[in-house]
């Protein structure tokens, strides 16, 4: 397909300068005659009649449809998942009892006092470093570091090989967090001493 220049662009000196991003609109019949016998396939030439920028609300080009209707496709998936999770939750709750020990007593310190499981990584770190590191520096670095990811990794590439640094950083946060959380959960007993899981579990949910 050939796109012809606007015929009067150089001839008409009085015409206002055409900004490159403005659409040149050429009406049929104003340009030079088009070569090629009419009706012979492969010889037709076309002129640009209008250039419509894609920022407009109306989609001009019609691409192969890569979308599905929300009703029923997405809603069916959501409904099935909601039913599955509800069922799972009810069955779990019928089978496994939520823990409840004796009433709180500040005078009786238990053999091992553990934070909720998602903070056991921090409690584990507390046994290596001082409380400022475990209670303030690490959690702040963790959350701010996570939030900063899109502002450090500015490239548009999504494949893992194109953002190795971010993958290493993210995996350090995730696997490091998982590692210390698992140790704090299953390998620590009275006095925060090392205990193998088969020697005794000191873990509450």
């Amino acid at each position: 397909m050939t796109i012809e220049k606007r015929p009067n662009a150089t001839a008409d000196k009085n015409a206002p300068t055409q900004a490159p991003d403005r659409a040149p609109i050429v009406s049929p019949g104003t340009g030079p005659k088009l070569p090629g016998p009419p009706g012979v396939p492969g010889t037709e030439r076309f002129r640009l009649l209008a250039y419509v920028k894609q920022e407009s609300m109306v989609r001009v080009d019609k691409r192969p449809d890569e979308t599905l209707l929300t009703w029923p496709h997405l809603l069916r998936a959501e409904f099935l998942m909601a039913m599955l999770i509800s069922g799972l939750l009810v069955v779990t709750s019928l089978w496994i009892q939520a823990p409840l020990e004796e009433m709180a007593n500040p005078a009786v310190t238990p053999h091992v006092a553990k934070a909720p499981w998602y903070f056991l990584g921090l409690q584990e770190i507390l046994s290596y470093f001082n409380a400022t590191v475990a209670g303030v520096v690490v959690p702040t670095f963790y959350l701010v570091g996570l939030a900063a990811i899109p502002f450090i990794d500015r490239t548009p590439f999504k494949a893992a090989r194109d953002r190795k640094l971010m993958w290493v950083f993210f995996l350090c946060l995730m696997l490091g967090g998982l590692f210390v959380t698992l140790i704090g959960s299953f390998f620590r007993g009275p006095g925060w001493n090392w205990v193998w899981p088969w020697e005794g579990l000191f873990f509450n949910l």
Partner: protein
Amino acid sequence: MNAVMRFIKESALWRSLFRQPYPNTSRTRALAVMNNVFLHLHPVRVKRHAVRYTYTFCLGGISFFLFLSLTVTGLYLMFFYVPSVSRAYQDIQVIEASVAFGTLVRNMHRWAAHLMVLTVFLHMIRVFYHGAYKPPREFNWVVGVILLFLTLMLSFTGYLLPWDQIAFWAITVGTQMALYAPLLGQESSFFLLGGIQVGQETLLRFYVLHVIAFPLIAAIFMIVHFWRIRKDGGISGPV
């Protein structure tokens, strides 16, 4: 029977509730999503890959569904619970022993809370894997990190409420770490606990945060989170 059904379906009451027949054409299906306040969270059409279970594993949706389940079960538990050191523990025992479905609802609340912490983390990992934090979605990633923090805070404040030994000592250990903030120091003890150790003031503080403040703040951030998904062009594409 048919006549009865037709009478019902032609009544003004029915038609005011259901403004169109059951959606079974493209047009009525689009209208059903557009005209419903709850469904219009979604666009009328979604990308083909977005519906695949193995693309998202529904982790964000599950997290939101668990939040709703926790709201409903939590509301039920609130009817039977007083945040007082002299009553809280007995209230839990009463819920378990004599409230209708009390044990079931308390268990559901507990397990849904733990599961939600897990699904929020997994959702974040899934989003990272797909590079979905890339422009224009940077802001929504930050909102997501805030929601992760709020989820942890919701779970943590709820952990104290049964007022048993697990709860008391877990919160004592958990807050002691935060008390070493360099600037605040012991001041933050009063701020967090309402005293020098976990007590009545702490229970009331955590209760109010747990049932009103954090759910409300989390809901506001969720609205922003879902809105940004739409504004940033729907769910991200495959890697």
